[in-house]
Each structure stands twice: as C-alpha cells, then as structure tokens.
C-alpha cells in the first residue's frame, strides 16, 4: 500500500511539472506577443525592453521555465494585472466559495443519484427505470448555462421563491455579519447561530447547486443503475437471496458495496466535470468563486491570472484524482490484502 502511495505521488509530481511545462510553452508560443500579454494593454517600447530583461525573455526557454517553475514551487504564481495582487492570494480568498458550491453539488449528485440508480436497477425494465432513463438522457443534453438561466427565469422571475444571484443577501451581511471560520457560509452561519443568515445563504445556494449537479446527477444515476444491474446478476447476490437476506439490505448493504468501485471512478470523473462546470455556473449566478475569477481574468486579458489559476486548479484536480485512485485501491480487498 505504501509502495503504491509513493509511486503515485511521484507520478503526480511528474505530471504537475509536465503541466507547468506545457502551460509555459503554450504561453510563450501561442499569443502573438507574449510580452504584451504579460504587461497588459499597449506598453511602450521601453517597457517592453525592460520586461524582456526582467522576465528573462531573452534567455533560453529552458532557463525561463526553470525560473518559472521555481517561483511556482515557492507559491508565487504571478501578479494579477488588474488588481496588482498576487494571483495566489486572490485565488485563496475565493476558494471557499467554489469549494462550498462544488462540495454541495457533488453531495447532491451522489446522495440522490446513487439511490435512484440502485432503485432503477432493482426495478429493471419497469416504469421507474424507463422514466429515469428518459430524465437522464434529457438532463445531459441541457447546457449548464441554459439550465441556470431557466431556473432563474422560473424560480426567481416568475415565482420569486429564490434570489437571483450572489452568495447571500448583502443587506443581511451588513446588518449582522458573522465570523468567517470555514468560509462555508452554511457552516459559519450555523456556528454563529444566525438563522436568518443561514436561511439566506441556503436559499442563495439552492439554484447554483442544482444547476451544477444536474448533469452529473444524471450520469451518476445511469451508471449506478447499469453497474447495479450487473451486480444483481452475480452469483454472490444469488447466494444472499438464497439465504433470505432482506431486499433493502441486499441492495444497499451488500450489492452496492460490490458496485462501489466502478461507481467511484465515475464519481471522480463527474467531480472533474463539476470543476469545469463551476466556471459557467459561477458566471451565471455571479458567484464570487474561482470559476468567476477565471472568466473575469480571461475577459479582461489578465494573462498572468489566467495562467496562475489554470495551474492551481489543475493541480488540485490531479490531487483529487490521486485521492480517488488511492480510495479505489483501498476499497478493493483483492488489491490491498
């Protein structure tokens, strides 16, 4: 087990380095003028010349990359052109907002998708199975941004049940601010005992979370259904039935355990989808997270910020994939024992 861990960690570091190299290479070759991109709008010839020396653009590429990688390893991912702040600081300040959104969406997709998929497998071929398949196929075809807009149209525009955007009612924040312990508004308001703020935070979370979770829920539900349908045909499930195991326990305690592995892989994949989807959802709902930051940076040509964010988010993505791989390994007694 430890050997596996060591091997995978080494591989992770190698890939992160590779990604940095790729991003670096692309940033130097793709834009028509990398210097202008790094400096922002229309610099003077003198500024350009100065930057060339500063950024070491006259040095060989390999040396440039080495400096770049070294700085990155020390936590310096450049400075935002818009705000002048280090990119890392800006990302960290927005991290909690995205984390709350993605975590809740993942929980929703898994906690609703898996049981529904299991149920569909148990009622294979019958009405619920067919219906869930139709819903699943449809949800996957709806663009994330359109779903968000539809929800806004109906739940805010027509019915006025939920707020349009943002994380929390700004008036509320001014009236009774609460301490930011975790950065997760749901937890922080709960800890502060501030029920009004809790309600506001929750109602603001509802639409973005549903929008982000929808497509993933559909995929998880379908995968759970397919994997369970196979597991239910296996010999060991037949044995359990032959010995009188109750259907509920059989499905969720016994068979699901066998289905966990492939399901875990898909959950890992959908987590990746959500990271990408969060960019769009945050844009639609004006959510102050990393996704929104990416869009802002791109649209305002804040080149260093774009590169910095891409590197950081990709590293986190790779790290989580590693965690999932390790979980996978640990959960299969045939591999780990």
């Amino acid at each position, binding site marked *: 087990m430890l050997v596996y861990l060591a091997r995978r960690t080494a591989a992770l570091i190698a890939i992160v380095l590779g990604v940095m190299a790729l991003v670096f290479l692309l940033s130097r070759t793709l834009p028509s003028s990398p210097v202008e991109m790094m400096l922002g709008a229309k610099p003077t010839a003198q500024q350009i010349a100065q930057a060339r020396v500063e950024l070491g653009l006259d040095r060989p590429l390999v040396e440039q990359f080495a400096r770049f990688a070294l700085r990155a390893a020390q936590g310096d991912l450049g400075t935002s052109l818009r705000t002048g702040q280090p990119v890392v600081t800006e990302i960290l300040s927005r991290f909690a907002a995205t984390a709350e959104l993605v975590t809740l969406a993942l929980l929703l997709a898994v906690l609703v998708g898996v049981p529904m998929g299991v149920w569909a497998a148990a009622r294979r071929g019958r009405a619920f199975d067919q219906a869930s398949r139709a819903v699943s196929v449809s949800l996957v075809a709806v663009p994330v941004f359109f779903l968000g807009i539809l929800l806004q149209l109906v739940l805010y525009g027509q019915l006025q049940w939920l707020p349009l955007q943002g994380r929390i009612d700004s008036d509320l924040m001014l009236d009774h601010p609460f301490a930011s312990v975790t950065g997760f508004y749901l937890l922080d308001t709960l800890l502060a005992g501030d029920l009004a703020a809790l309600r506001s935070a929750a109602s603001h979370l509802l639409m973005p979370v549903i929008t982000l979770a929808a497509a993933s829920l559909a995929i998880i539900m379908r995968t759970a259904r397919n994997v369970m349908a196979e597991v239910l045909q296996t010999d060991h499930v037949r044995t359990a039935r032959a010995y009188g195991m109750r259907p509920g326990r059989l499905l969720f305690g016994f068979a699901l355990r066998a289905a966990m592995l492939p399901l875990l892989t898909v959950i890992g994949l959908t987590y990746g989808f959500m990271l990408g*989807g969060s960019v769009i959802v945050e844009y639609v709902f004006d959510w102050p997270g990393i996704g929104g930051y990416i869009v802002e940076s791109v649209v305002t040509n804040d080149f260093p910020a774009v590169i910095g964010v*891409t590197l950081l988010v990709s590293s986190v993505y790779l790290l989580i994939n590693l965690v999932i791989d390790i979980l996978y390994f640990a959960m299969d007694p045939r591999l780990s024992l």
Partner: protein
Amino acid sequence: MSASLTTQLPAQAPRLGPWLRRHATIAWGGGLLLAMLLLGLAAPWLPVADPTHIDLALKLLPPGTAHWCGTDALGRDLFAQVLHGARISLLIGLGVVVVALAIGVPIGLVAGYAGGWVDGLLMRLSDLFLAFPPLLLPIMLVAMMGPGLENAMLAVAVSWFPWYARIARAAAMAVKAENYIVSARAFGASHARILFRHVLPNSTTPIIVQASLDFGYAILTTASLGFIGLGATPPTPEWGLMISNSRSVFLEYWWTAAFPGLAIFLAVMGANLLGDGLRDWLDPKFEERTA
C-alpha cells in the same frame, strides 16, 4: 469508452425501412440532427428575415405570427438567428470532432504501432492534455489565442485529441500482433503503408462510435464558450452567444433565452441519441439496454 475492434460496418446495405425501425435511436437522433443541419445550411436562402438586421422599433416583441420566436433587444428576428445558428453550431461541433480526430488518430496509430519509447513518450505527452479539468484548457487556450469561433473550435479540439489517440493506439496494438502484418512486412511493405492500409481501417469503428458520442458534447462546449464570451463574436448568431446577449432582459422577455436554449437542447439530444444508437449498432458487446 471501448468498442469492439473487429466489428466492421456491414458489407451490404440493409433495407432501410425495417432497419430504421429496429434502430430507433439512430433514426430519431439522426433524423433530428439532419433536419436541423439541412435547415441551417439552407438558412441563407430560406424566406426568413436577416438575422443581423437591427431595428430598434421592433425590439423585444413576443413570439407571434410576424416573428415566430419573437425579437431580441436589438429588434433582430430570433427565429432567423436560431436557424442561422444551427449551421454554425453544427458545423463547428463537427469541426471540433474532425480536428481532434486529425490530431489524435495519427499520434495514437504511431504510438501503438511503434511501441517502446515512442509509445511511452507520445502517450505521456498526450496525457498531459488530460490533466486539466474540462473547459479549463480551452478557456486558457482561447485566452492566449484571442476570442473567435475558429479559435474556440481549435482550443476544444486540442483538449480532446488524447481520447482519440488512445483509441487509435489500442487498435494499432491489437492489429500489430496479427499475422497478416508480419507477412506484409515480409513482402516489403513499408511502415507507413501498413499503418494506412491495414491498421487505420481496423480502428474506424471505435473512432466513429467515440466521435458520434462526442459530437453532442462538442456542441455544448462551444456554446458554453460562446456564452462566456470566448467563442463566437457579435454579431454572429451563435446560440451560446445569443443566450449571453439575453441576460439583461431574459427575466421579463423569456423568449430571448428560451429559443436558443431549446435549439441547443434539441441539437445535443439528437447528437446523443445518434451516438448511442451508433454505439449499440456497431459494438455488439455493449449490452446496456437489456429489458
């Protein structure tokens, strides 16, 4: 993601009617897509309004007899925009898949056929492109290349090619071991010839399956890029861009967002159905739907 490598497309064309009825998903999906594509392609010649014609006097009209889908904030006819958008979105989606194929398949074929360090190197390199969460790499690439529909298409294609490289590589590795390859070499066939005449045809089936499954997602992704302003530029009537334009008014004027959104939904649904149907037809081992 895998498909049978030895299934070939049927040698003789079956009778169309009963065949379509049996493969209903291909029929419906393909039909839907085909309809949209034809309409989109024919759009410039159809008797609809000019999608770029601005007339502020006509702005934000609800759907009615004069304007089937209403008008947007600049008075442009939405139906015309949606129709023209069909051409753009479908062709761009196709372009994404084709370019991803064009990059990925040769890389995969060479990697699988050559083996050894060439294989290792090529696969490691292409795996780097998979290290990014979806959408992030296209966004970064567009940021570097500048906005525009072609750039968006290239960016998405570049982030997808590794999937096709993997499929092509698997096919190449499977075929490489076959006896007829060895005999072809014995007769002096060059590597290139073997790759082209023997290996490539064997990999077409799984590639077609993957491509058709990806087509819908290609449409979605380019629309998403258009939505956040990184794809099509105004005044191009691209569906994602149209929804983006509607953001200031859609709460009171629902049609400005609903119709382009519906169009995307139908196109992606059609593509997904077609992809699923093709996969079921061409991959006999895939038994997802057993009653």
